[in-house]
């Protein structure tokens, strides 16, 4: 057992100290993943890590596959874990959100989900 602990200590000794970062997981969104909502003029994605705006993106499409023009993708103030995007008025139907994010240590993650606007 002592040999195992010694090995672990050696491994960490060789690792130069640095700020720990990690992959950015999607924690929450508005509209929520899979939700049915009345209307929505904004998309809000909250990640587990800060992300790089220049290397992150959000695409929204309708159920028929046509692109929905998102505007002004931005951080939520100084909070780099939250991305906001303005949406045009959405007709009733199902929409698909595809996102990708690069965390501040350059780990890339991606995902997609749907939400529905009810009549």
């Amino acid at each position: 057992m002592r040999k195992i602990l010694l090995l672990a200590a050696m491994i960490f000794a060789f690792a130069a100290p640095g700020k720990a970062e990690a992959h950015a997981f999607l924690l929450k969104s508005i509209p929520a993943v899979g939700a049915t909502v009345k209307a929505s003029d904004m998309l809000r994605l909250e990640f587990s890590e800060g992300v790089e705006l220049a290397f992150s993106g959000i695409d929204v499409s309708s159920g028929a596959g046509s692109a929905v023009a998102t505007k002004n993708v931005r951080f939520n103030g100084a909070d780099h874990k939250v991305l906001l995007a303005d949406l045009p008025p959405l007709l009733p139907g199902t929409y698909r959100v595809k996102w990708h994010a690069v965390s501040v240590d350059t780990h890339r993650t991606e995902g997609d989900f749907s939400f529905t606007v009810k009549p």
Partner: protein
Amino acid sequence: MSCRMSYAGLLAGAAGAIACAATDAAAHGFAGPRFFPATVATDDPFVADELALPTFAWFKDDGDVRTTTYSVGFAKRITSNFALEFSGAYVQQRPPGGTTVDGFDNFSLGAKYQISVNPVRETIFSIGIDADLGGTGTKRIGAERFSTIAPTFFFGKGFGDMFERTSMLRAFALTGSIGVAIPTEARTPDGLGGFEDNPNVLQLGLALEYSLPYLQSQVRNIGLGVPFDRLIFVTELSLDAPLDRGGGKTTGTINPGLLWAGQYVQLSAEAIIPWNRGSGHAVGILAQLHFYIDDLFPASLGRPVFGGRS
């Protein structure tokens, strides 16, 4: 890794399989939106920078020998698709009415190459080879004097593209491996004046996962908060089927349990249920603390030696 063979002279059934599988430096990784955690009882298809320390296992084999193992596994990416792995295990064995013997099992070295990843299909395929280094462990706990080489094929498949977008079945995923453990010596002295045959062994590993993080971020947010939003249910199956030399019946274990995948570490706890009577008589436990080195040290130890990070 292929150290499943290493207790053949002392422990019957799947005891060796359990102890040695737990030393694997199983990898975590992504295929598109799918996060695959590091599985514990079976090896999975990703290459990564990570450390499993410790992995604890307790079980009782079909000879009622109570075995406790404390293991370490370390994997280091050389390139973004190729990694080297090392693992070792400290073993304590207590036979019925006997005294405890302990020592190190044979150490293992391995290499794994990630052939392809399809983000849309959430699939991954890899090949690897592991070597249990004969004579590096303690003889009194049954560590073999010969080595075992195990070429292995790995796969992973998320179910995200297999069902309608709102189907909760999309949160399922399957990883697996199939390989053959080949001893470097077909026959060795048994210490009693005779000989022991060492068969080639087909090794099969499967892990069925249900990911609550995937469910919440890809399918439907059901409102789970910390810590439940990071839980992954898993059931692993590890089987060893001797192919020749009178190797006996297939043995193995079923391991249902839970994984909690944090940002930097993963905690795992699983039961060890014998596959058949030849695999043991009692339910054991398996637990692991696993560090994501690529997330902890993204600018140093956690990046590939060549080719930058991935």
